[in-house]
């Protein structure tokens, strides 16, 4: 039998990657391009949707050319995307109304506080499984409708379209102004605060609450199932699936059974645990979200611990402080010292998400003395990722009643050995990395391949999963870090208190 390949596009926060996988789930081509981060004001983070669309076309064409010996053997396209990032565009011209409001953007803080004070606000948590927070897409959409003159009226007339990144890409891939399909997948829709998480439909009460016209919303589709034909690629391909990047990673890690969990370490980090077809509500500060849905099957849910800033703190060390030349060099710098020198960094750049949900919290560096060097700062930067993981793992253990046996990890930060060992020590459990570090892309490829029959079922995918590395906790370090945990918790409380004084 001739080999068949699947193309995945991972439209991430820092870059867009196009990756081709074979039937054994092995990477055969990868092309990547970073896009510009716009910070027009403090707390504002924007991306140019047209730049991202151009990068998608470019990297996809390059990756397809890399496997050009096999025309016709690439049989489907899957999409994974940065979640909650909000695009509004003109149906007639295809031009974005404003730049995309990125998931890290905090401009909707005051709007959300205003909405939260309303008597109907309790409805939001109940219907969506989420917190009423500026992190999600709905408030951003509302902000655009308020900020751009005439936008609301045009949206009501159906002239403007809303979507998260996968919607924007699918619409363009399927023809744009010339018959583009306006759809979203159910995992992305579950991050808007506009969808009823049980019925998986746009909820009229929520649309009223946020003041969003139904006419501009995409149709909600399963994550696995053909959405249309990507006619804008050099080789037209069926788009077999789309998922939010974190759900894609859960899928790529083949966490198909209830209780199975993974954490993905990128710009932010996200712990997701499959809870099966039951929607489980957290009592410890996690959110309930859609994990995935295969066409014609019931929705699978997940509990999620969202951490906004992990890799982004490394980027800050590189771009804002200039202490390192590349993200990976943080490990070299951190290894110039043997501990954090008493220093803790709470990276609450845009408030704190799970398990605290403190939109006003702001970042701090605690424990500074003249003894602290840039090496200690680098350690504290990496440790912040470990401590924050401990916070969400503890919440998840409490919710499920079962301590996690081993943590499955993936994402850009997992090539950092110092960090991975710190994680094992701070959690007191082994940390396991799969053979495909690009698990987000793999999950999107799996979704698309399932839709067109490259794989028969999820069982076939499980057999592709192999361990590529494992970090085992060191008992001495585990005890020392247990003893230090209250220090971290105190630093977190200080960062929350700092925000409250504003």
């Amino acid at each position, binding site marked *: 039998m001739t080999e068949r390949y699947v193309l995945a596009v991972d439209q991430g926060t820092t870059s867009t990657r196009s990756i081709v996988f074979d039937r*054994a*789930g*092995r*990477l*055969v081509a*990868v092309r*990547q391009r970073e896009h510009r981060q716009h910070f027009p004001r403090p707390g504002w983070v924007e991306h140019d949707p047209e730049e991202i669309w151009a990068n998608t076309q470019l990297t996809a064409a390059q990756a397809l050319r890399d496997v050009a010996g096999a025309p016709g053997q690439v049989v489907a396209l899957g999409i994974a995307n940065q979640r909650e990032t909000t695009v509004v565009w003109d149906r007639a011209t295809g031009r974005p109304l404003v730049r995309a409001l990125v998931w890290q953007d905090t401009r909707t803080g005051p709007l959300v506080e205003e909405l939260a004070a309303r008597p109907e606000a309790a409805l939001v948590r109940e219907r969506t499984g989420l917190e009423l927070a500026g992190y999600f897409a709905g408030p951003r959409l509302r902000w655009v409708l308020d900020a751009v003159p005439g936008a609301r009226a045009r949206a009501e007339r159906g002239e403007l379209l809303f979507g998260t990144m996968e919607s924007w890409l699918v619409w363009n891939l399927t023809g744009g102004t010339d018959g583009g399909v306006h759809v979203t997948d159910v995992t992305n829709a579950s991050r808007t605060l506009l969808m009823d998480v049980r019925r998986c439909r746009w909820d009229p009460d929520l649309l009223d609450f946020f003041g969003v016209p139904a006419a501009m919303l995409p149709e909600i589709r399963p994550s696995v199932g053909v959405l249309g034909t990507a006619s804008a690629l050099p080789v037209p391909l069926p788009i077999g699936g789309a998922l939010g990047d974190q759900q894609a990673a859960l899928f790529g890690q083949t966490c198909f059974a209830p209780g199975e969990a993974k954490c993905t370490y990128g710009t932010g980090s996200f712990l997701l645990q499959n809870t099966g077809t039951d929607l489980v509500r957290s009592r410890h500060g996690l959110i309930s979200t859609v994990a995935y849905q295969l066409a014609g099957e019931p929705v699978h849910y997940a509990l999620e611990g969202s951490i906004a800033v992990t890799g982004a703190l490394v980027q800050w060390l590189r771009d804002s402080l200039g202490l390192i*030349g*590349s*993200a*990976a*060099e*943080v*490990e*070299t710098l951190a290894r110039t010292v043997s501990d954090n020198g008493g220093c803790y960094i709470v990276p609450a750049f845009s408030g704190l998400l799970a398990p605290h949900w403190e939109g006003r919290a702001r970042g701090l560096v605690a424990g500074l003395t003249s003894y602290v060097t840039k090496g200690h700062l680098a350690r504290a930067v990496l440790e912040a990722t470990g401590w924050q993981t401990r916070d969400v793992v503890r919440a998840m253990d409490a919710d499920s009643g079962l301590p996690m046996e081993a943590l499955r990890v993936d994402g*850009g930060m997992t*090539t*950092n*050995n110092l960090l991975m060992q710190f994680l094992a020590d701070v959690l007191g459990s082994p940390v396991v990395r799969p*053979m*495909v*570090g*690009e698990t987000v892309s793999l999950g999107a490829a799996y979704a698309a391949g399932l839709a067109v029959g490259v794989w028969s079922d999820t069982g076939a995918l499980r057999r592709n999963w*192999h*361990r*590529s*590395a*494992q*970090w085992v906790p060191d008992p001495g370090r585990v005890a020392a870090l247990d003893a230090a945990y209250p220090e971290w918790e105190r630093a977190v409380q200080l960062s929350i208190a700092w925000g409250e004084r504003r």
Partner: protein
Amino acid sequence: MPGTVQSIERAATLLHAIVESGGQMGVTELAAAVGLPKTTTHGLLRTLLAVGFVEQDPRTGRYALGAGLLGLGSHYLDANELRSRASNWADSLAARSGFAVRLGTPAGLQVVVVHHVFRPDDSPQELEVGSVLPAHATAVGKVLLASRPALARALADARLEALTPRTVVEPAALLAELQTARARGWAEQRGEYRLGVGGIAAPVHGPGGLVVGALGVSGPAEELFAEGARPALRTMVVEAAAAVSRELLA
């Protein structure tokens, strides 16, 4: 090697010694590291200083690589950066070959493992990142030695440890093998480090063309060198190493 200029070769050896120390070295240390008299070493360093290839710390008097080298297009490559760039292709090589993968960087006559991907069979394995291997007995080591003729010649005086009965300890035999490895672009090892465990490796080139690392597979020699398996494996290894080299250009 006929027709080489001794002082240039020595200067290159000094630069390698500074790189491999990971930072700064004093003149006494350097002289010891390259096996030259201190006065000779000092003379060489003065010239390197003059052309900007080394810099001297005014406080400590110690030497580091100079900014003049940056312009040559092949500046010092951070080992963690190398791992980060190599990761996707190392994963893919392990998955496709079915063998464990290691990425090594040079440290004198030894190799530092900067990346390790388990054999994809989910058997218990331990991460070996940071461990040090003897260059003369491993495939990754041979690739690195082959890329540094000055170092390779230092082998002639070194006592090569026989780690197994198959270890090549005769300098002339090893040098001949290194020359072949360099010419064909890959090296192998058949039970020379641990009996029954073999390896195949190929060079990873930095942006300036210098060999900055070696990427290789290792596993049971009878599987690795099974009839018919070797050419396909070799191609996979060479292609993966070339893919990492391309990644370093980006």
